[in-house]
């Protein structure tokens, strides 16, 4: 059973790749390698190339990484090395919370806060500051451009990088830091020498995970990047990334058209890039994890053989025990200690200041998101009918008419139906696969499944959506846009997360529990089910909640699979409303009442996400949670 589920993960990945390749095949053969370099997207003439999308994807992701990494490291350093003990938990929680905000909410926030700010202040400011030199010419993008997308990506990947870096730093045994302190290092010096060094593999892995997330980010980017298919000329050029171009065009194309196949080829490219990045990241994390378990967090790297020995040969060491005069430099160093200490303390305090600043930068967007959504969505969510009504006909109020607000009843209903459907598939499958890997999978097959589940959590959901759509087109094309299709897409999002969470939960059960149960004569599967699952219960619940919240917050996959509807759910085979697609479709509607509904829906979604993460947190607390190290 469990073995079958584990096999299921492999099958899923194989199907994913297989179906994408199969469906994109005509485009692959038609354009060949030239597809990567083609710069136009011309439907009337059937000429397609992914060049601009690839360039924009890489540019925005790399620059976002460049901005996010120092800030994330500052946050991680503050949270693990500097913050007083009582502040660490709550601040960590807040930073982690910003990782749980759905991308449609970030996009929504960026649309209302960042884009206007860029348009009115930052971009003109940059232009005048640089005298309009390249790449800062006067911007005509109204704030919808690469720079804005980069900033939004920065905000979005920051918590991911900060979280992994923080965990890596915590995994470094305290003794190294204390050794450094005992040499007379300041806290910052101890961090630099004895924490950042040993944690570097984990930190690099965190950076790669952040990169993977940036490369595949879809909805938020789509909402601010301008969606123009040209090679960028300046940082104020509007553009389109692979993911944003796919989501923008997918539903308008007829399957089997060359444009559709070219779009699938784009998905394939995105899949290849993100899988590559995630394989590297996960590989590093695995190495880091197994090294920290052995006590030394990083494999010693062989140092370059320098000219060290030559210089040494030249200095003849004093005979030990001769008690000769101490060398002159010792006295010089001793004399300089005091003034040097002033400077070192200066550096220490500068670092403290900078890390606090990083923390503020990391938390500010969360605060702004909550405030913005509360302000915009507040008027809608206070009406009880908002939760139970159909969305209204589009309408703008004028002196002669008032518009009805309507509500998001069908969206809420559809969301829960598809979420339930997804969970129905994903929870058993993920649990079984996880049990297999954790309890039985000490062989290479088990390890492979565990690793692939890890990698799979990093595949952009837009690709999962494309895959499920293609799958349905193949087997049951009438249901390609339906609740069923949406539910399957959500399940594909959830399966690897549940699997991973299960593996981690089971591994955290002390072997003692397992052994004593076995010693009492329980057969193996009973041990697993009763004893081990029992003691890992709260961690499992947390994992399932995490998976559900990811599915709940996802837009890209649902947009491609559930379709949309303004009515109550009618059958599994018809298009169905859901919260995130509703927000995405209506946040910039030309009708005021629909916009208001979308604002309210965004606030409801945010509240649900925060609620889930709070419940998950409480579940961890109530379970036998391991103390947090520091």
């Amino acid at each position, binding site marked *: 059973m469990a073995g079958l589920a584990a096999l299921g993960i492999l099958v899923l990945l194989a199907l994913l790749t297989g179906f994408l390749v199969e469906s994109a095949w005509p485009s692959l053969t038609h354009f060949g390698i030239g597809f990567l370099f083609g710069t136009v997207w011309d439907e009337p003439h059937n000429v397609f190339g992914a060049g601009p999308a690839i360039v924009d994807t890489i540019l925005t992701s790399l620059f976002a990484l460049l901005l996010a990494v120092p800030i994330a490291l500052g946050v991680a350093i503050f949270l693990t090395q500097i913050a007083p003990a009582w502040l660490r938990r709550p601040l960590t929680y807040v930073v982690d919370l910003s990782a749980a905000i759905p991308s449609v909410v970030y996009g929504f926030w960026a649309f209302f806060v960042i884009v206007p700010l860029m348009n009115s202040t930052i971009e003109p400011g940059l232009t005048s500051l640089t005298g309009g030199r390249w790449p800062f010419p006067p911007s005509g993008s109204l704030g919808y451009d690469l720079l804005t997308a980069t900033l939004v990506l920065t905000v979005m990947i920051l918590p991911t990088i900060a979280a992994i870096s923080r965990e890596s730093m915590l995994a470094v045994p305290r003794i190294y830091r204390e050794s450094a302190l005992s*040499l*007379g290092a300041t806290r910052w010096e101890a961090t630099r020498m004895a924490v950042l060094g040993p944690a570097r593999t984990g930190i690099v892995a965190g950076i790669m995970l952040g990169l993977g997330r940036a490369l595949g980010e879809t909805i938020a980017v789509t909402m601010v990047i301008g969606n123009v298919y040209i090679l960028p000329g300046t940082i104020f050029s509007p553009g389109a990334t692979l993911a944003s171009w796919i989501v923008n065009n997918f539903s308008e194309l007829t399957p089997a058209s060359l444009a559709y196949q070219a779009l699938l080829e784009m998905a394939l490219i995105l899949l290849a890039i993100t899988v590559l990045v995630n394989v590297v990241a996960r590989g590093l994390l695995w190495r880091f994890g197994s090294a920290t378990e052995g006590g030394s967090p*990083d494999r010693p*790297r062989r140092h370059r053989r320098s000219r*060290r020995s030559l210089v040494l040969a030249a200095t003849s060491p004093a005979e*030990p025990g001769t008690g000769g005069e101490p060398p002159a*430099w010792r006295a010089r*160093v001793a004399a300089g200690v005091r003034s040097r200490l002033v400077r070192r*303390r200066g550096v220490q305090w500068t670092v403290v200041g900078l890390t606090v600043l990083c923390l503020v930068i990391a938390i500010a967007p969360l605060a702004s998101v909550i405030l913005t959504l509360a302000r915009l969505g507040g008027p809608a969510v206070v009406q009880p009918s908002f939760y139970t009504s159909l969305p209204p006909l589009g309408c703008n109020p004028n002196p002669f008419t008032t518009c009805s607000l309507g509500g998001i009843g069908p969206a809420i209903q559809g969301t829960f139906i598809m979420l339930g459907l997804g969970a129905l598939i994903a929870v058993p499958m993920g649990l079984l696969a996880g049990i297999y890997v954790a309890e039985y999978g000490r062989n290479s097959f088990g390890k492979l499944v565990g690793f692939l589940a890890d990698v799979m959590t990093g595949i952009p959901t837009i690709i999962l959506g494309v895959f499920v759509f293609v799958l349905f087109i193949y087997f049951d094309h009438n249901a390609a846009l339906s609740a069923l299709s949406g539910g399957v897409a959500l399940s594909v999002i959830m399966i690897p997360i549940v699997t991973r969470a299960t593996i981690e939960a089971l591994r955290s059960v002390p072997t003692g529990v397992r052994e004593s149960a076995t010693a009492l004569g329980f057969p193996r599967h009973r041990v697993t089910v009763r004893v081990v699952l029992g003691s890992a219960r709260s961690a499992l619940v947390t994992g399932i909640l995490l998976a559900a919240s990811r599915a709940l917050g996802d837009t890209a996959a649902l947009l491609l699979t559930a379709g949309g509807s303004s009515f109550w759910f009618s059958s599994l085979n018809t298009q169905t409303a859901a919260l995130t697609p509703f927000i995405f479709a209506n946040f910039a509607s030309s009708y005021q009442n629909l916009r208001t509904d979308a604002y309210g829906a965004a606030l409801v979604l945010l509240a649900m996400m925060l609620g889930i993460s709070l419940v998950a947190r409480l579940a961890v607390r109530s379970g036998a949670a391991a103390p947090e190290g520091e």
Partner: protein
Amino acid sequence: MEATGVNAWYGRRQALYDISLAIPEGSVTAIIGPSGCGKSTFLRCLNRLHEETPGARVSGSILLDGEDLGKKDAVSVRFRVGMVFQRPSPFPNMSVFENVAAGLRLLGVRHRAELDQGVVEALELAGLWDEVKDDLDAPGTGLSGGQQQRLCIARALAVQPEVLLMDEPCSALDPIATNKIEALLQHLKTRYTVVIVTHNLAQAVRVSDTTAFFYLGKLVEMDRTEKIFHAPREKLTENYVTGRFG
């Protein structure tokens, strides 16, 4: 070095009660006592490492050369009072050379010749030079356990502290490696004040001049080592050194 009325807490829990004792200079002082009696905590108070534990607190005063360490900057205190831990802890991302040079670099030693000289001196003092001189660029964690521990001693000695604190430095080592470190201690005490925590009573007899016996966070008795082991004043001490508990 002199401690007066030292109390220490972890959160609300008190680990040390009113410890007052004088550590003679230029000799080896051993701290013994059953597990959990606060030996490590006391040692960590001596170089103000205790306060780096989140939630930890300390009161009382510790004097070194007549100066109250609590009133000075923690960094300059630790530079004068070095520490070697129970588990060998060479920095995992550094070579043998860089491990020993780490403290010197903090002090601002830049010139290669000076760094080389300081490192060689410390390695020789720690009795490790002959074993590592051919491969100074190898990772420090690649050495054997005993060598790693001597590397940590060399690392601590390189900045020429006045006092060297050692928390069960041999408990993770085999007898031969232990012998080497004990021999080293005899050599070191001519230049340094050494305080060593040990569970190995025979070791305390072999290496120390003075012994302090801790019990449940309190100092029971401190005296010349022969005295503690052969004619202790307190019944509790006698029971402990004769192996009747602990």
